[in-house]
């Protein structure tokens, strides 16, 4: 795949404004990628099977490791799309950042768009 002039790009909002992430076509449905933000933080960006876009913190709060982008996506029976941490498998709602397995835990959600 080579990016063409018409290809859509994915952008992420941070303190420094909208910054480019990658070409939309580079995102594989059901998987994520890691993004380095200008301040050194990391975000995980996902595309789901219905082509919706999500961005959350890449840090797994249970282990401290920066790995959420490498988790698998799933959806609950009521349709909430989540990522399961590849380390200890806790699930995080991608729309709200809530941990579905531990009420008290929540990760930050970032704004993302494709342009």
């Amino acid at each position, binding site marked *: *795949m080579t990016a063409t002039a018409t290809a859509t790009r994915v952008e992420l909002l941070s303190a420094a404004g909208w*910054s*480019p*992430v*990658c070409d939309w076509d*580079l995102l*594989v*449905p*059901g*998987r994520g*990628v*890691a*993004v*380095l*933000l*200008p*301040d*050194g*933080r*990391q975000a995980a*960006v996902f595309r*789901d*099977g*219905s082509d919706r876009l999500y961005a959350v913190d890449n*840090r797994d709060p249970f*282990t*401290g*490791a*920066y*790995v959420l982008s*490498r*988790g*698998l*996506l*799933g*959806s*609950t*029976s009521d*349709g909430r*799309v989540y990522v*399961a941490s*590849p*380390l200890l*498998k806790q*699930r995080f709602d991608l729309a709200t950042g809530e941990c579905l397995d531990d009420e008290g835990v929540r990760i930050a959600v970032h704004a993302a768009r494709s342009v």
Partner: protein
Amino acid sequence: MTTTKPTLLLVGYGMVGHRFLEALAEAGAAARYRVVVLAEEPRPAYDRVGLTSYFSGRSADDLLLAEEGFTDRHGFEVHLSSPAVSLDPAARTVTTAAGRTLSYDTLVLATGSYPFVPPVDGRDAEGCFVYRTIEDLQAIEAYAAGARVGAVVGGGLLGLEAAGALKGLGLETHVVEFAPRLMPVQVDEAGGAALRRTIESMGVVVHTGIGTKAITVADGRAVGMSFTDDSELATDLVVFSAGVRPRDQLAREAGLAVGERGGIAIDEHCRTSDPHVFAIGECALAVDGRVYGLVAPGYEMAVSVARQLAEQAVQPFTGADLSTKLKLLGVDVASFGDAFGSTPGSLDVVYSDSRSGVYKKLVVTAEGALLGGILVGDASAYATLRPLTGTGRPLPVPAESLVLPAGADTAVSLGGSALPDDAVVCSCNNVTKGTIRAAVTDHQCTTVPEVKKCTRAGTNCGSCVKLLGTIVADELEASGVEVDRGLCPCFAHTRAELYEIVLVKRISTHRRLLAEHGRAPEGSEGCEVCKPTVASIIASLAPVLEASGHILDGEQGALQDTNDHFLANLQKNGSYSVVPRIPGGEITPDKLIVIGEVAKEFGLYTKITGGQRIDLFGASVDQLPMIWSRLVAAGFESGHAYGKSLRTVKSCVGSTWCRYGVQDSVAMAIQLELRYRGLRSPHKLKSAVSGCARECAEARGKDFGVIATTNGWNLYVGGNGGATPRHADLLAQDLDDEQLVRLIDRFLMFYIRTADRLERTSTWLERIEGGLDHVREVVVEDSLGIADELEALMARHIGDYQDEWAATLADPDRMRRFVSFVNAPGVPDPSIRFVPERDQVKPDLVLLATEEQLLAALDPDNAPFPAARILEEAR
């Protein structure tokens, strides 16, 4: 103080003696007594009921009944090889053969019985044996090696078992029975005839209605037998199995009451004529005038005495059920209740098919209540019919429908729901249906293994386990516990069912499987459970589905767990470890040097694994391709340490170097590892090959293990190490290379096809219906007729194999994922850092403790790569 405790002396440490010690511990009374055990045999109690399995590979150690440390844990003093030779009830002492005298407060005799040898001339000649202990079997085994013909005197239960053993040892086998039919105690004439036909068709020669007159002896060795009808038989080996007699000598000589025909007389609480002495098991003569030669009544007595010693209330022992179900020479035989119809007015319902050797007879009352029965050739109904026996209530369905073969129009098989609560489901441990139901309702057991543990049901002969399963399932359902066998919230099917669906409907994507067979709402993503499971099923069937075999291609790439996605193992700080394949654990110095160089260059922590290879830790995602291009160039390939697939085939050094070795275990291990590498399965698969019976490679702790014999290879399956260790079971023996490989092909494919997600072969083997026997029938005897298909599937897997890492390096599309950051390729992940330990590295976990810690480390003053600047440059 221990010296003030009363002494409890147990004489005889056989099956019943052991059950007594267990029951004493269970009743919480072990610590109340100083417990001393005198055992005649050189080893602790073992499974005499399963004695014959010694010939199919269970070692003397495997047969032991107690788990390790049992006697020490309870403080029991066990003296092996120390038979008691005299008893003085007045002084309350027992003297051992070594001359030691022990005092007791309470004595329990559990001395069992001895085999009866008819007083015929020549019975002491070399080549004459009995069949009772491990030593007997070892002697038979050794002698059979130089023999051609063997004869068994006695065509009862034990005689037929012994005949099966002689047959298995390769002898021309004869059975001589005095009665007009086989198993005269358990089956009637027609049943005996069915049994005889089947056994004869296996090549065992049966002689009935004749007695043995003498053993012909030449040079001190048995060479033949002569019979009451004046016929003769030339034979090299004779096994006497003409019944047993209770070992009551100790009690008899001490003046305790014994029966006219032997047996230590006991009352209904198992007390002998001396109030300080109990007798239990096969040496005891119960109040009903019988000596019980089965283990279950002995267990009942053992538990009763133990409870009395713990001052608990007990039921009187007045007699026991003599029902039996056995597999003799591969033929099922069961006999229960009033098998001979001796109840006045009883009626028979009989089905007999001499072509297939099936004979079934039910004895019923005029009102249709079951009194007993005999089943030969197909005893599958035994588990439900026996508990229904003698309840006095009419059967829930016509008796004739219960004897018809499965598949016949009106055949019915009863499940647990047909049984009343007081029906005894497990006769070995006397567990009723009510107790089993209570385990579910009152003790929160939700699985068969839990119920077995809680009630002991099904833990002995196992004939009731299937019935147990239906009762537990019914009860769970009735109590509203939803028994969801589904793989995950997205699928109501099990993994094995999904496998069949994928295979039959040729479905090659998770998305389609979910849409057509899932239970999740439309548009569902699936989940982290079904995605990798379905990916694994599709991967193992890829050649048949004509899907791409590479696990990173197409939709497959999105279904894999991170380990499969990056072809490496994720570690706690987000870095990965790398394991190149080292088949059979054999490696050249040059390759070792390459691994060392790579580890040094990339700063990796190195460790030798349990599977005889080398694990390299601490690689970041972007380093993986660089590391692997070095390894692939040096001739390494993926070790699949990241996948649910074959890990390693360990080996000992074998006959090439080892002075004991009888086969080349290294060559075989390499052959097997290369054959099955990359095979995706429900869980990881481990294997090992040992070059002789010393078993240095620990093959019996593996999913499939191979042990060399002088004649070839023995194949063991279902072993496991880890948290729930299990010794592998012998599947087949003395195989040549080709037979070995063929059986492993079938075994693995059958497992892949039928196992649940994350179910190791050990749990699979214990869960599936029919257990090891069923697997042997399918894999060795091809009872389902699928062996060719299983072999063909394996052949396609082998033909399609490609090294996943070499293929990945060659493909820019697949390579694209190996970046830490999609917006900054080439920038390493700053969260992956290490600190030194023992001259190597370990993850820097402080850095991961909070986000602030990481950000502080990235401060321009102390960070090697300020993120903002690098991002700027990357753009």
